[in-house]
C-alpha cells in the first residue's frame, strides 16, 4: 500500500508543485494557511484536476496527464475528512452513513455495518439527529464514521480539528489516533499545527508557497530541519544570520555574538535557529555562548512566562534580532522589563540552517 504524488497546478498567480510519497504510515503536510495543502489533497481525491503530473495509489493510476488518465472521485476509494462539517444537512446521522453504505453495488449487510460503525464511533444516542443538532466534535465523529463506511484505501484529513475548541479537539484527536492505528494503509494529515502533526504522524512533508518536495521523519524535522522555512514551520522562534568563523563556531550577526556549535558548520549554513525552550539565563561560571540582553517585555503565558529580549540592549530594528525565552514561572521570578541579563545557549541546541 502506498501513494506517489507528483503534480503541478496553476491557479491564478499561485502555483502548486507537490512531490511526495508514503507507505503504510501517516504523513503530514505541514504548512501555513494558503500554501496549497488542501488543494493537494483535493487533487488526490479527484475533486480538483492538476495541470500535469502523476498520482498513483496502491499501484492504481488515479491521474496521469501523459497517459490521459483521470479517474472520477467516485472510483478512487479515497476517504477524505474536511475542515468543516461535510455531513448532508438534510439527512440524519444514520441516513448520512446509510447513503454511503447502500449506494455501493455491494450493499449486502448494510444494516449490520451501520450498527458496527455507530457503535465504534459512539453515535448510538445521536443516530437520529440532524447535523445541525450536533456539536462540532460530534459532527466530525459522524463524518469520520461515514468516511470509514466507504472502506477507503487511503485516508486524507484536511485540518479536521480547525473548527473545534481545544477540549473537543483533543477528544477528536484521540478518536482519530484510534482510527489511524487500526487502519492499514496510507493516511495523510494536512495541518498547520506542529503539535498535532508531531502527535499523529510518522513523517512530515513541509509545504511552503505551493511547493512540497522533501519528506522528513518527524523527529528529524523537529530536531534537525534543514532550511530556515522548515525550521519556522517546526515552530522555532529565534533566528540569526551567521558568518562561519571556525570548524565549529559561528558569528551570529543579529545577536553580535560569537557562538560555539556542537556540530561542524556546513559551508551553506547562513542562519541559526534556537528554540525558545532552550534559551536559559546564564549560570555563574559559564563564559562561552553567552549573549548579554536587555529584557524588552515580559509576557505571562498560561503555564509559563515568555521573555522577549533585545541582544546587547540594542532596540530591535526588525529582522531576526529579538530573542524569545520561555521559562517556568519559578525560573522567571524577579525578571522585569528593562533588566540586563546574560543568556546561555547550549552548543547542542543550535540548529544550523541553509537558505
Amino acid at each position: 500500500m502506498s501513494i506517489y504524488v507528483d503534480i503541478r497546478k496553476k491557479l491564478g498567480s499561485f502555483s502548486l508543485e507537490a512531490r511526495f510519497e508514503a507507505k503504510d504510515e501517516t504523513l503530514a503536510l505541514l504548512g501555513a494557511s494558503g500554501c496549497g495543502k488542501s488543494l493537494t489533497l483535493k487533487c488526490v481525491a479527484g475533486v480538483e484536476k492538476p495541470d500535469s503530473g502523476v498520482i498513483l495509489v496502491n499501484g492504481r493510476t488515479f491521474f496521469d496527464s501523459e497517459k490521459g488518465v483521470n479517474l472520477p472521485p467516485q472510483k478512487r476509494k479515497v476517504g477524505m475528512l474536511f475542515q468543516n462539517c461535510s455531513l448532508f444537512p438534510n439527512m440524519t446521522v444514520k441516513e448520512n452513513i446509510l447513503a454511503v453504505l447502500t449506494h455501493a453495488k455491494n450493499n449486502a449487510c448494510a444494516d449490520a455495518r451501520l450498527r458496527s460503525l455507530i457503535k465504534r464511533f459512539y453515535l448510538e444516542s445521536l443516530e437520529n439527529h440532524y447535523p445541525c443538532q450536533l456539536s462540532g466534535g460530534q459532527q466530525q465523529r459522524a463524518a469520520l464514521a461515514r468516511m470509514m463506511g466507504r472502506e477507503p484505501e487511503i485516508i486524507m484529513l484536511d485540518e479536521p480539528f480547525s473548527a473545534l475548541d481545544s477540549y473537543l479537539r483533543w477528544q477528536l484527536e484521540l478518536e482519530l489516533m484510534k482510527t489511524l492505528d487500526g487502519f492499514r494503509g496510507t493516511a495523510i494529515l494536512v495541518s498547520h499545527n506542529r503539535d498535532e502533526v508531531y502527535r499523529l504522524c510518522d513523517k512530515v512533508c513541509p509545504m511552503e508557497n505551493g511547493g512540497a518536495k522533501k519528506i522528513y521523519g518527524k523527529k528529524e524535522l523537529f530536531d534537525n530541519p534543514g532550511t530556515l522555512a522548515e525550521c519556522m514551520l517546526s515552530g522555532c522562534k529565534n533566528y540569526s544570520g551567521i558568518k562561519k568563523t571556525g570548524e565549529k563556531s559561528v558569528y551570529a550577526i543579529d545577536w553580535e555574538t560569537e557562538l560555539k556549535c556542537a556540530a561542524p558548520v556546513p559551508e551553506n549554513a547562513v542562519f541559526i535557529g534556537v528554540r525558545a525552550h532552550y534559551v536559559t539565563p546564564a549560570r555563574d561560571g559559564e563564559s562561552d555562548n553567552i549573549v548579554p540582553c536587555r529584557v524588552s517585555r515580559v509576557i505571562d503565558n498560561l503555564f509559563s512566562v515568555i521573555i522577549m529580549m533585545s541582544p546587547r540592549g540594542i532596540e530591535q530594528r526588525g529582522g531576526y534580532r529579538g530573542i524569545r525565552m520561555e521559562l517556568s514561572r519559578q525560573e522567571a521570578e524577579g525578571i522585569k522589563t528593562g533588566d540586563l541579563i546574560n543568556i546561555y545557549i547550549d552548543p547542542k541546541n543550535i540548529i544550523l540552517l541553509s537558505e
Partner: protein
Amino acid sequence: MDWFPLYNSLRVALFSTCITFFAGIFAAHYAAKLPRVAKGALDCLLTLPLVLPPTVVGFFLLKTIGPLGPVGSVALRSSGLRLTMSWYSAIFSTSVVAFPLMYRTARGAFESLDKTLLYSGRTLGLSDTYLFWRVVIPNCKQGILAGTVLAFARALGEYGATSMVAGYIPGRTAMISTTVYQLWREGNDALAYKWVAVNLIISFVVLAAVNLLESARDKPKEHLETLSGRT
C-alpha cells in the same frame, strides 16, 4: 362578472411555471458547471428577457412562432396548429419572461450551497445524479420554491409580450392583465377596479409566501440549536 380571465390567467401561469421550473433548474445546474467565460455569456443570454421590454420579447416571439416564423410555420403545416392568438400562446410569452426569475434564484441557491458537500459526496462514491437529487435539491429547497413563486407571479402579471402574442379575445385569450387594460380603454372603471382588487390580492399572497420561504431558510437551524443542548 365573467371569471374567465382569472381562470385563463391561472391556467397559463401554472403551465408556464411548470416549464420554467424545470428549464430554470436545469439551466442553473449546467451553467454552474461551465467555465467562467462561457458561464458569463450564457448568463447574459438567459437573463436577457428580464431586462428587455416585454414588447421586444413579444416581437421576437411573433417572428418565431407566428404563422410565417420558422417554428410557427412548421406547426401550422404539420398539424394545422396556430401558435399565436389562442389561449396557450400566452404560455410561450409568460414562460420566456418568467424564466430568468426562476433561473437566477435557482442559480443563487446552488451557488450558495457549500461545495464541500459535493466534494465529500463524490469521494464517498455517491454519483452526481444521486447528489443532485438527494443533496443539492433538498438543501436548496427554499431558494427553488421562492423562485417558483416569483416565476408564477410574473407569469400571472405579464402583459406586454402576452398582449402581442395572444391578443385580447374575450372568452378565449383574455387574461387579468389584458382585461384591465381593455376595461380602462372602454371606460368601465367599476369592473376594472374589481380586477385590480383581484390582482392585488394575488400579488399580496405571493409576496407573503416568498417572505415566509426566505425567513424559513434560517429558521429551522435556530430552532434545532436549542434542542442540541440536550445531547
